């Protein structure tokens, strides 16, 4: 079978075939345009109406899907199972949270310029690292910059020391746990146990207004689309093939003249940046960021979304995060307390029965169908031929 050499194609064709692009565009249209319209333009009496609650919930899922894309780049493509992606999500979230706190103004419980928790702690003024976060631009940059710089430092030390496999998983898990303990401290000036919450406005828009939340939802959808295209671009380039090669045979990569440290660092930092953006979009929609986001269990869940959807496919990461979180919201509402059992069962089930995740389901069904289907047409002619022979004899 002659497949066209992908490197001769223009960039957009290297990422997807025209049919695939149409599917991507249709899904993007559904998420970014149709869903908000079902909330704002369709009257609540209609069965197609989406409630405010549903739209903000879906917006939260979209930020999770962005987070999962980075995780897939890291784990699915490069084989680095980081169990600390929550760190970068939370760092991005805290940066945005600080901005939102500083724009509560006098509307807080204590009607003070200072954030409530600082008044409560009798702090006379903002700590030195707070004032720059008054600027939306600075906070947005920091939401990407802080996680990427942190990832660059941590990743450099870890990858240069050739820490990999389960050891990397363990130290990233320890990292998120250590940061959780750190963020619990009031002395850190980030709200301790309670975190940052009770926001009022973002960039001048009231967070109580549904139009603001719809805007944040649309922004999440657009960022998800752009992150997907960026990740797809990375994975379809030669760089992407080097990443997969590192996953499948790091020794061969080194003896082929590539230094894996630089590549691992690149993908670790890219995943952290994406996670930071996701966190920054998550916080204004959910209305709170606190150290519980740094609980190791939260980061493990990210790995589960990707495994359930299908590792190393990007689409699987998005699908997995939407399906698992949808299931989570539905179950915790219907059968409170059952969630962890179901999550465990889903994870084990997928690993045992569908190791390539939900995205492989259609292909598997098709393969199963093809195994069954040809029997009839292949069997029948031989019978007729045999009968004809009998008759002619």
């Amino acid at each position, binding site marked *: 079978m002659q497949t066209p*050499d992908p490197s001769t194609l223009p960039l957009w064709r290297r990422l997807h075939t025209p049919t695939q692009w149409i599917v991507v565009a249709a899904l993007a249209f559904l998420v970014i345009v149709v869903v908000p319209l079902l909330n704002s333009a369709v009257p609540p009496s209609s069965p197609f109406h989406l409630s405010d609650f549903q739209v903000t919930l879906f917006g939260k899922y979209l930020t999770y899907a962005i987070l999962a894309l980075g995780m897939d780049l890291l784990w699915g493509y490069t084989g680095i199972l980081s169990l600390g992606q929550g760190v970068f999500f939370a760092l991005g979230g805290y940066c945005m949270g600080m901005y939102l706190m500083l724009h509560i103004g006098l509307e807080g419980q204590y009607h003070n310029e200072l954030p409530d928790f600082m008044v409560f702690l009798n702090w006379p003024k903002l700590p030195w690292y707070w004032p720059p976060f008054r600027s939306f631009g600075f906070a947005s940059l920091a939401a990407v910059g802080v996680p990427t710089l942190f990832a660059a430092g941590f990743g450099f030390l870890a990858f240069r020391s050739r820490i990999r496999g389960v050891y990397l998983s363990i130290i990233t898990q320890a990292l998120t746990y250590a940061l959780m303990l750190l963020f619990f401290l009031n002395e850190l000036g980030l709200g301790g146990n309670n975190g940052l919450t009770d926001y009022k406005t973002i960039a001048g828009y009231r967070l109580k207004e549904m139009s603001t939340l719809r805007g944040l939802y649309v922004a999440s959808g657009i960022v998800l689309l752009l992150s997907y295209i960026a990740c797809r671009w990375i994975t379809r*380039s*030669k760089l992407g093939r080097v990443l997969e090669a590192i996953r499948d045979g790091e020794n061969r990569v080194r003896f082929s003249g590539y230094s894996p440290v630089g590549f691992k660092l690149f993908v670790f930092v890219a995943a952290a940046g994406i996670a930071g953006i996701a966190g920054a979009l998550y916080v204004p929609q959910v209305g709170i960021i606190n150290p519980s986001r740094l609980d190791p269990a939260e980061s493990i869940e990210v790995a589960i979304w990707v495994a359930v959807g299908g590792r190393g496919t990007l689409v699987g990461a998005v699908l997995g995060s939407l399906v698992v979180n949808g299931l989570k919201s539905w179950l915790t509402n219907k059968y409170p307390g059952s969630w962890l059992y179901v999550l465990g069962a889903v994870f084990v089930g997928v690993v045992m029965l569908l190791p390539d995740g939900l995205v492989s389901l259609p292909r598997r069904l098709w393969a199963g169908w093809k195994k069954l289907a040809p029997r009839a047409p292949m069997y029948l002619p031989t019978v007729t031929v045999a009968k004809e022979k009998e008759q002619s004899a």
Partner: protein
Amino acid sequence: MIRPLDEVDKLTPHESIIQLEGCTVSFDGFKAMNNLTFFIEVGELRVVIGPNGAGKTTLIDVISGKVKPTDGRVIFAHDTDLSRLRDYEISNLGIGRKFQTPTTFEKHTVRENLELSLKGNRGVWSTLFSKLGPKDREKIDATLERVGLQDRAGWKAGLLSHGQKQWLEIGMLIMQDPKLLLLDEPVAGMSDEETAKTGELIRSIAKDRSVMVVEHDMEFVRGLNSKVTVLHEGGILCEGSMDKVQNDPRVIEVYLGRDSAKETA
């Protein structure tokens, strides 16, 4: 980034391309390489044999940078000391190695495997923006043909037979255009026919570069018809043509044991 040395091309015949000076590798007291002094001339095809544990793979490890010698120097071309460089830097200098068990990227196609090995900038950013030129494609096609995998180009490497994987790995090394090629048991697990084909391939590769082959298969070694080095307990036992080596009583002794040495004598 380290580039292949021009120095190598300036070497005159009989100068050494690789030279180990008093190299010792010790793992917790066990000396896998013991004060070894060894060299290969530029353009030479050298075979290294020896019983299990003689230090053959260690020799390849030391040259390719997988293992650092505890003592001694490894000189490439005139004066590049490899013992201070990292494995991927050594690879970029123009030293390629094949592993004992074929090591390819199993989930990539054969063509992609070769593309990844294509000589060129190996930085993160340059691979992100890299595009294959027509010359690169020609080179990949030529290599596919050379290792006999032209009708397997679109296959995932993991689906190849053991022998084909060995050839693919050799093809990947050809793509790197190395000055010195280190082949660790290139015919292990191959059928007689595949072995013959591999021998031909290695001889053709050796025409324009230096090659060192570590092998167990004596028939194959004889067929390469080149200088043989016998390693034993991390040192050189003897060197010379296959005939000379095979009749050396010390070689017979280490291969067959003391008693049979007496019998032959």
